[in-house]
């Protein structure tokens, strides 16, 4: 930088006409002032946009839920169908998330460490659930596991009902949240490298021991981050589950489906209360994500 950058600007055709008769110092001040004004303008527009699109609507629903005090909220929370929906959501998450976690770690290892033909195609396949509409996921599952689906007759012979019951809902939830753990684990795995694992194996550790003692501790924050994202997505999944569940009240109704059901039956308090429960879980997810990113940064610094 020259000692007097504003002096250089004075030669430019754009500013020489406008700033005629002013000293370089005042010109620098004017430029700083207009930059400052621009900065404030950008800030106002950006924050205004976020407030109108994001914050105000979310704040509004909290206000509407609690505006008549706690007792209608308590009644809405303790309604039997609400309770059932909540616990069904938890049950589905408790099955789908561990499955996706084990699969995700295994698939990340395979994609990151493996060398085989068709690896990039496999990577694309893993990402496919992100490109497919949840509704299409639901439809595809019906076409395989439904009564008229490919495996429909066979499943009926075995006495297994997938569509319109919990197994189908677990599968739908697992599909839409499939890529998270894979995608969050892969970069951490790459960063970790294979040196420590090889050292462990040279020292006599079995592959299994090396995985448990060296690899897994090294990638744990990536995995946990992926698990948080998987859980949030699994808890909130709507479209795919809506199709495969048949939306049977008190039986196959998850919390998001319950929100829709209450809303369409003009039970606004019931809908808002369930929505607020889900929104609180979403905020908890954000908090967890932030703590984990901070933790991960500290981890790499050590």
């Amino acid at each position, binding site marked *: *930088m*020259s000692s007097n*950058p504003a002096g250089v600007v004075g*030669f430019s055709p*754009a*500013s020489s006409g406008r700033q005629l008769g002013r000293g370089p110092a005042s010109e620098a001040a004017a*430029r700083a002032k*207009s930059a400052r004004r621009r900065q404030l303008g*950008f*800030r106002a527009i*950006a*924050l205004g*946009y*976020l407030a109108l*699109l*994001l914050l*105000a*609507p*979310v704040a*509004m*629903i909290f206000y*509407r839920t609690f505006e008549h005090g706690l007792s209608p909220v308590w009644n809405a929370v303790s309604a039997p169908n609400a309770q059932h929906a909540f616990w069904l959501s938890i049950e589905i998450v408790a099955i789908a998330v561990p*499955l996706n976690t084990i*699969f995700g770690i295994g698939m990340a290892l*395979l994609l990151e460490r493996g060398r085989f033909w068709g690896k990039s195609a496999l990577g694309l*396949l*893993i990402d496919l*659930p992100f*490109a*497919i*509409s949840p509704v*299409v996921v639901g*439809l*595809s*599952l*019906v*076409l*395989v596991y439904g009564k*008229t*689906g*490919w495996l429909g007759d066979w499943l009926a012979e075995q006495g297994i009902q997938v569509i319109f019951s919990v197994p189908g809902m677990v599968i739908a939830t697992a*599909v839409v949240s499939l890529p998270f753990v894979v995608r969050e684990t892969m970069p951490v795995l790459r960063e970790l490298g294979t040196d420590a694992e090889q050292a462990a194996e040279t020292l006599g550790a079995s592959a299994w021991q090396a995985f448990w003692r060296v690899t897994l501790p090294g990638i744990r924050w990536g995995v946990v981050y992926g698990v948080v*994202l998987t859980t949030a997505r699994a*808890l*909130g999944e*709507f*479209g795919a589950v*809506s199709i495969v569940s048949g939306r049977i009240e008190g039986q196959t109704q998850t919390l*998001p489906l319950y*929100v*829709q059901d209450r809303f*369409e039956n003009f039970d606004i308090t019931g809908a*808002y209360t369930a*929505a607020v429960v889900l929104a609180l879980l*979403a*905020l908890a*997810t*954000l908090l967890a*994500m*932030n703590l984990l990113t901070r933790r991960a940064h500290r981890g790499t610094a050590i």
Partner: protein
Amino acid sequence: MLGIYLTVLVLLPVAALLAKSGSGGTSAFWREISNPEAVAAIKLTLIVSAIVVTINAVFGTLVAWVLVRDEFRGKKIVNALIDLPFALPTIVAGVVLLALYGKDSPIGIDVAFTRASVGLALLFVTLPFVVRSVQPVLLGLDLAMEEAAASLGAGPLTVLRRIVLPTLAPAIISGVALSFARAIGEYGSLVLITGNLPFKTEAGSVYIFGQIQNENLAAAAAVSVVLLLAALLVLALLGFALRRRSRHVL
């Protein structure tokens, strides 16, 4: 084991979808997707998604800029809240938007059951994409280059056009492509706020849902394949554009 899991969850269902959409031959497929209601739904989805990602490109970049270059109280909280649309269940997004912009709107703006509501819901659920893809690039952008350009007499607009935007372009494009793929498949946030009126506010995904309810699986599968291809096309173009660009730079 991994293979079985992937087959049960993804491979078999996608194969079944493709098989179903092609089961009646090309003429049946064409008939299903040229049904006027299906055409209207697909058109609405594509047009509104295109408008939404354009708005995302502008405001997403601006928000990223403010989060990286500006300093103000509460910035960390704002930054954390950007991801809220990803964490919030889509049906809740719909309810939340209706609480402020529905018929009981305290500010007198009621967009429920209009085409604007489709755009509003899609803007909400796709908000983080551009912000999150531009932010890291902006963090890595060297301020010295902009200062040098300014000291050589470039006005703020020239600096933006010649230095900042070209550097950010790949990130903006990738955010836009991800937003688009998400927008054309979106369902949950649209259900309550758009009213699902055929020929007016019925989006592609909502049309598919209706056809499944009517047990018209062939029609649902055909339109599904169209939406899926549109999403894959955009993502493939993105991959292509980024690869070409990186080769160009290197």
